[in-house]
């Protein structure tokens, strides 16, 4: 078998066998699934209150006569505020509200409770609202009253220029998908390139490097490691994508009315895989370069932050990217190789990215990967066998010229 293939296989098998890798790969779907189950099970476990809460009210307008009992709440009329207050302090009622004489012009309702709270509970608000509407719309059909209570049930559709429904319909899923996916992408890239860095550090510390280099060239070593670990990362992200699809189906069936149906558009998946591969390759060669010049795995980890921090930058600019995808800063983030993967994923969930922008971004990424690969093999030759000392920038630049 070709030696590069052997290395790829070795790195791949060793990585997917790692406990940490297996745990991380399974953690995301398992935790999400548990979350979904909890969301379905927990509401059923909360026992609804059986006692009927009493809420008092004082009507100074004189038209709110029709009482109401819904949501386990009974509205009790009081003739005056003093009586209502006594009833409250005597704990005959939980709270009371006063409909002022100028209610019809101001809508003002004063509410009095014994406990402090952030805001009135939604139940109380609904009860009061329904009570007011019932009385205000007295004489109308029940259907009209019911509609007035819930007048708008919006269903919007984005059309393309041709008048057919567009692939991206926006909405909640447009927000949540890019967010979840950019975080998953980042995690996958960091995990596998992190293993690369760690692996190089260990091989340096274990002094295995020179034995390896007696059988294979630095170029084969670099290619084998990058591709082997990349394949492991790809497995991870594919597991995540498949389980995400599955989880979303569950989520849609549970909260379909709240969040709309969450669907992963196929081109989103394709871009996700392309940018995972490119983003990973870029980080991997960068990590390999860092790994080759740092004497220990620990030191390599510290130095790698120079490259890992910028990857996260698009997350900070999420708002800008979402609201102004045409902004120049967003274009720069799309083209700059280190920030490109996350930026493109965030953008692609929201709106169509012009094809030329994608092509430019992908070309820049491929060129940077190739250039860095060549530079890193040079670093490999010079520094893989240098133990205990980290070269300074001048020495590194010189070794690019010499090797």
């Amino acid at each position: 078998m070709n030696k590069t293939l052997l290395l790829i296989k070795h790195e791949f098998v060793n990585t997917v066998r790692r406990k940490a890798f297996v745990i991380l790969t399974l953690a995301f779907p398992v935790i999400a699934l548990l979350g979904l189950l909890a969301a379905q099970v927990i509401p059923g476990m909360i026992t609804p209150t059986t006692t009927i809460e009493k809420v008092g009210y004082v009507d100074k307008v004189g038209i709110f006569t029709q009482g109401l009992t819904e949501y386990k709440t009974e509205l009790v009329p009081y003739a005056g505020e003093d009586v209502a207050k006594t009833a409250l302090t005597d704990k005959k009622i939980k709270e009371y509200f006063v409909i002022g004489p100028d209610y019809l012009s101001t809508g003002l309702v004063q509410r009095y409770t014994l406990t402090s709270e952030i805001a009135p509970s939604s139940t109380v608000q609904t009860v009061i609202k329904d009570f007011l509407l019932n009385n205000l719309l007295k004489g109308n059909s029940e259907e009209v009253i019911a509609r007035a209570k819930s007048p708008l049930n919006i269903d919007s559709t984005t059309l393309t220029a041709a008048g057919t429904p567009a692939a991206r319909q926006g909405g909640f899923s447009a927000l949540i998908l890019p967010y979840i996916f950019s975080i998953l992408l980042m995690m996958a890239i960091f995990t596998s390139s992190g293993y690369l860095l760690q692996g190089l550090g260990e091989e340096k510390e274990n002094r295995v490097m020179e034995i390896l280099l007696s059988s294979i060239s630095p170029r084969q070593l670099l290619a084998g490691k990058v591709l082997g670990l990349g394949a492991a990362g790809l497995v991870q992200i594919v597991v995540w994508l498949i389980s995400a699809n599955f989880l979303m189906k569950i989520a849609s069936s549970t909260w379909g009315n709240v969040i709309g149906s969450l669907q992963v558009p196929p081109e989103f998946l394709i871009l996700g895989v392309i940018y995972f591969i490119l983003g990973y390759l870029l980080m991997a060669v960068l990590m390999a370069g860092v790994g080759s010049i740092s004497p220990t795995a620990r030191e390599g980890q510290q130095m790698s932050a120079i490259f890992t921090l910028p990857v996260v930058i698009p997350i900070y600019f999420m708002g800008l990217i979402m609201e102004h995808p045409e902004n120049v800063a967003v274009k720069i983030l799309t083209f700059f190789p280190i920030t490109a993967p996350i930026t493109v994923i965030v953008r692609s969930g929201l709106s169509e990215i012009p094809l030329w922008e994608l092509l430019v971004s992908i070309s820049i990424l491929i060129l940077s990967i190739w250039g860095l690969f060549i530079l890193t093999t040079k670093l490999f030759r010079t520094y893989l066998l240098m133990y205990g000392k980290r070269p300074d920038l001048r020495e590194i630049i010189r070794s690019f010229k010499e090797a």
Partner: protein
Amino acid sequence: MFAIEVKQILKAYGNRAAVNNVSFDVNQGEIFGLIGPNGAGKTTTIRMMMDIIKPDSGEIKVMGEKLNDGSKNKIGYLPEERGLYKKMSVMDTIIYFASLKGVDKVTARKRGEEMLKRADLLPHQNKRIEELSRGMGQIIQVIITTIHEPDLIILDEPFSGLDPVNTQLLKDMIRELKNRGKTIIMSTHLMNDIEELCDRLLMINKGRAVLYGSVAEVKSKYRNNAVLIETKGDLTGIEGVTGITPHNGALELKLDANTTPQMVLERLVKKGIVINRFELSMPSLTEIFIKVVGDEHE
């Protein structure tokens, strides 16, 4: 064809030449010693032979050609800075490194078992490397170095860190490899190992070749004009002898420039002195080493 031909290689780090214009050849089937004090440039020379680092100038041929993927598989290399994957088992380690040299899994396992058995390490084959002692680990490394039946074996400081038992085991392994026609290059700073094992040697100091040739040639070149004799007779007043010093139970007679050992022997016989042993006094490689390196210091 030489196993290795090295022509005027030069490697500089900054202003310092680690290896300066060194040339030598290694014959097939011999044990070739690369000796020199620490930091002399032995490891750098070996790394250039293995194409791990490239010389600034000069040429290296392995088995008559420049090193390539195919010829790499014919070399076994035990580096000075050596180690193994700590978490891997002994047999997995052997199979993995053998596969990188083009040996298939079945053959690697079979040979690995044989070699482990000979080194009395077979019961440890499923242990992880980190569970082994340092000496055991080194023997495993030697097994990895030779598992692909290489024609050329390069051992950089093979005895460092080994206890006497494992040292002996390794020496036996090296002799056996030579008997099977393999070429062996070993670097060391211990002269006794060279005297015991090597056919020819190259001594480098501060990046330059200072001695090169067969062990016997080198020793005779550096012999002092002296003889060693064992006798109970009276040695006073022999012509041409400038001094007598005891030397390991015998006496060393220093001769003046006009006297050869043959002449001294004749004179002793003429005087009727009974001689139990007579030999040329040869310096040990250690003495030569110290003399050469010492001279370079001045």
